[in-house]
């Protein structure tokens, strides 16, 4: 096994004096991903699915190769992988194409209190239109999903359960297999927000029997502008189109239009060809990491170092599980007497990038009774020395505010 600390050199942006700890928002890109743009536009650029000429076939093959890679990456069938713009659009697709048809007056949708806004707002809007309702699954004082509360709320026979695989604030990994099993027992379908977990090669749609799963390429060292939606084939085959237009049709006559096969039925218009093609490089990069490096050991090292060293700061409270079990290296925290915006501004003076605010999870902050938090989220190219720099920066913030 190779030393994972070596991979930092693959990321041009990290060669400067930068401590990048905002990976839950977006990840940095390795040289292979960046170079793939030039390669594509210089040698393979054409529209997909239409030209008979060789160049168009080449572009189509590359575009579909990414779909194949994604399908393998999440253990799905190729026809179950739809390319969208991002996780948010993937969830909106489910809301419009499945939700509009299947959620009726009086129906219940379950959401967890730790959902990202992208997995809240579409459903709140849908239930308003449908006169349906939302029930919230609580979290425990240990920042875990309350499975007893889930079991209780499942008695309401919900049609859909929407749950994040990994919380982008708490770092908590939800027991997705158990949640899906319990939900299926009462006939509910489950939508998994894998925006955070897909970055860690945790998604196995078959093993966990997911119905819907959404994630974004840019959080996997890939390009912005590409999202993925997985939908189980028998559900997808019965869903109405999302957008209407070119590519999603088989035949168009004045009096009769028929839809294309899945997944093309859900990809109207010229897709984001270059970004999808480039996305393949980021999946290959992650696959290579998992094959050749001790990824999980490194991750555990980062997590246990963070949980130990952050406690050195007086008044610092970690908003998330206090042990390395079932959590990812995402650390949101508060420091008594210092506002999160001030913390991140002071850290920025030393080129340390962290996020402050609600992290698109305002419901969670409401539930916890916290105004805002600072979040440091790590990825494979981070090291324990990045965490040491973070703590040095936090000590400076304490110094400035000690008066």
């Amino acid at each position: 096994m190779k030393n994972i600390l070596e991979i930092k050199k693959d990321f041009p942006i990290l060669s400067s004096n930068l401590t990048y700890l905002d990976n839950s928002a977006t990840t940095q890109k390795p040289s292979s991903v960046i170079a793939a743009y030039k390669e594509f536009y210089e040698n393979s650029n054409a529209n997909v699915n239409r030209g008979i000429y060789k160049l168009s076939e080449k572009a189509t093959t590359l575009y579909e190769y990414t779909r194949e890679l994604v399908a393998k990456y999440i253990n799905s069938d190729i026809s179950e992988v739809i390319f969208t713009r991002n996780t948010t659009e993937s969830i909106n697709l489910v809301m419009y194409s499945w939700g509009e048809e299947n959620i009726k007056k009086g129906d219940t949708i379950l959401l967890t209190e730790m959902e990202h806004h992208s997995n809240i707002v579409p459903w709140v809007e849908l239930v308003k239109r449908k006169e349906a309702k939302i029930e919230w699954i609580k979290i425990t004082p240990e920042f875990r999903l309350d499975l007893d509360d889930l079991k209780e709320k499942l008695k309401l026979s919900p049609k859909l359960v929407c749950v994040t695989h990994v919380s982008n604030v708490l770092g908590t990994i939800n027991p997705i297999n158990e949640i899906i099993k319990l939900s299926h027992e009462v006939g509910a379908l489950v939508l998994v927000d894998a925006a955070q977990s897909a970055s860690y090669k945790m998604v196995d749609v078959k093993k966990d029997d997911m119905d819907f799963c959404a994630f974004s390429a840019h959080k996997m060292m890939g390009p912005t502008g590409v999202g993925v939606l997985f939908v189980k084939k028998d559900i997808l085959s019965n869903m109405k189109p999302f957008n209407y237009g070119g590519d999603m049709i088989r035949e168009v006559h004045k009096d009769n239009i028929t839809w294309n096969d899945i997944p093309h039925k859900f990809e109207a218009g010229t897709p984001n060809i270059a970004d999808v093609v480039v996305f393949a490089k980021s999946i290959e990069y992650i696959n290579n990491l998992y094959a050749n490096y001790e990824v999980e050991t490194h991750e555990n090292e980062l997590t246990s170092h963070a949980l130990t060293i952050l406690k050195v700061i007086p008044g610092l409270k970690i908003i998330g599980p206090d042990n390395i079990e079932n959590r990812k290296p995402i650390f949101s925290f508060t420091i008594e007497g210092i506002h999160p915006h001030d913390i991140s501004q002071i850290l920025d003076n030393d080129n340390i990038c962290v996020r402050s605010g609600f992290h698109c999870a305002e419901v969670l902050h409401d539930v916890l009774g916290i105004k805002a938090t600072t979040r440091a989220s790590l990825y494979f190219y981070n090291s324990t020395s990045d965490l040491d720099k973070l703590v040095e920066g936090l000590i400076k913030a304490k110094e400035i505010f000690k008066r």
Partner: protein
Amino acid sequence: MSSNIYQENIIDHYTNPKNFKVIKDATYKGKFSNLSCGDEVEVYVTTDSSNNITDIGFQGSGCALSIATTSILSEELKGKSIEYIKALKYEDLTSLIGITPSAARSKCVLTGLEALRDSIKK
């Protein structure tokens, strides 16, 4: 002007804000919340018969910039007329506090003024 926003005066006004109080029978009351960061400031303004500010108070929570700017502004406003608040601009606030924060922090600087504007529009 300095770009280091954590100068002594800012920290002092943040840790010990002036006029940090509720005025129950204030002539004007207003508030402003910055939803993106959870900051919330409520202001109370008392005026005399010619609409000059005789007392001012504020409550709330926020970052160093929003609390310190509101505190400094509250000192500045005593004795001034309500019209003076209406004419205040962002640049007046930055020269008052003596620093030029980054664009992302302009909302923090404006929190107190927005609450004051809210109080007098009613």
